[in-house]
Structure formats: C-alpha cells, structure tokens
C-alpha cells in the first residue's frame, strides 16, 4: 500500500520559512498570493492490505516521530 503523510504547522505558530517563500512568490510576480505556510510530505510504502490498520500505524508514527505535535498537525491518507 502507498500512503501519504502530510505535516503542517499549527495555526498560530510563526513560520519564517513560509513568509520567505511568500515574499519570493510575490517577487516573481505571482499576483493574489495571500499567505504561504510550508510543511512536509512523507510517502510511505506499507506491507499488507489492511487499510484501517495502516492508518492506525501511520498515526502512531506521526505521534512518535514524523510530527512534533507541539507545533505541527498531521494527516494521513492510504491509497
């Protein structure tokens, strides 16, 4: 199974990198960019075919390592 984990900064956490990216997009002339928040994507290959079990495992991975839940939210999707 292929899974994708997306980790984003929580609302209210300052994101200097996102701000810099936002500034660069504006410099490039992209109009209408309100704001940019940067995050991380992990593509994970999993054995087996138990989708619910995989989601459970991925959430545990996020809680224990992939995300820092002090500052980050995460979401998982298994295809």
């Amino acid at each position: 199974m292929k899974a994708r984990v997306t980790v984003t900064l929580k609302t209210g956490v300052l994101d200097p990198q996102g701000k810099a990216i936002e500034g660069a997009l504006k410099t490039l002339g992209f109009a209408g960019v309100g704001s940019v928040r940067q995050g991380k994507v992990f593509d994970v290959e999993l054995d087996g075919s138990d989708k619910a079990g995989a989601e459970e495992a991925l959430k545990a991975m996020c809680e224990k390592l992939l995300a820092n839940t002090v500052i980050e939210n995460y979401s998982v999707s298994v295809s």
Partner: protein
Amino acid sequence: MKSAVVLLPGLNRDRDMIAALTKISGQAPDTVWQTDTEIPDVDLIVVPGGFSYGDYLRCGAIAARMPVMRAVAEKAQKGVMVIGVCNGFQILLEAGLLPGALMRNASLKFVCREVRLQVANANTAFTRRYQPGQVIRCPVAHHDGNYFADADTLKRIEDGGQVVFRYAEGTNPNGSVNDIAGIMNARGNVLGLMPHPEDLIEDAHGGADGRPLFESVLGIAA
C-alpha cells in the same frame, strides 16, 4: 560530582563540553553512546551541541528517539541533573523532557556571535552562582533557536520561574518568544539552553561568564 556526556552521530561540541567539565570538576566525564541503554551512576548528564543526524526531519528529532535518550529520561525522573546545550536543548525538547519547541531563526540565517544573557532565575541548581538579573556574555551558534510555546505553556513556565536565561534587551538573535534563551523543567533538574556556556569558561576563551553555571550544578565553590 560525576558527570556524563551523551554522544550521538553529528554532534560536534562534545569535546568542548568534555574539556569544560574536566577543567571545572577536576575529573573527566563518562561518555555514553546513542545505543547505550544504561548510564553510569552520575550526578549530571550533558547533551552537547552539534547537528545530530544532520538535523534531518527536525533538529534533534531522531536523536531524541535513540535508546540513550530513554536512559536519560529515566535518570531525569530519578532527579539526576540534565543539561542540554544548543542541539542538546533541541533534543531534550523533542524527547519531551522540556516544554515547547525550537523553530527556524526568524532571520532564517545561521547566527554565530556573542550575545548577552540575563539570568532570569538565579534561584536554580544551575544558576545559584550568578546574581539575580545578572547579565553575562555568552556565544551562540545555531540556525534553529527560535523558542516557541503555546500561550498556556508559556504562562506556566513564566509563572513557574522555569525561564532561566533570557537574551538581554536588544540581543535576541533568533526571534524567541519573550527573549527566552534557556528553560528548565518544573522540577528544576533539567535545563536546556541555546547559548554555549562551555565555550566561555576560562581566560583563554576571552572570559569565564559560563563557568558559574557549571560550578552551580557541580556544587563547586567559585
């Protein structure tokens, strides 16, 4: 007092820390490797600075999940003193031994310079050889030292006297909330700080403002 220094791949300030502890305590610290599950019987454990695991994922994130850090947590639970400096601070946060997180510097730049630190709480095991409010010199060298905690956590650590060091006015190098440079846990036996007191312990360093921190925690008369 006996001490131990935690070694992980990618740390590069371990030798400075070992030298400082040896010079100040008169005996070389033990060293423990990332895979060690037991730490010798010591009074102080130090996690030094550097770039453990190349700062992959998040600074300190992978190091914090190594077996040795479970052993550090167990020792901290028993009341053993623990200090994390720079990457060591990031590791202690990622390991959940201290509250909050360290983000990329607000300037997005690596900062390597001297700052001034105010001793925000001199009534701790780490700072009793300083005067309350004393301002000291200390070098910093980091890319991710921008301390963040949610409003509730921030209030709790401020009210509880857990903010131990602040960047003195006008010297905050990274955008840390409330100018926070170093914090301790509620129990007062685990300290994390971004600046490097081990690099300012003798005249050859150009000053010894960092020395009282080690003298405090090691129980050595100045």
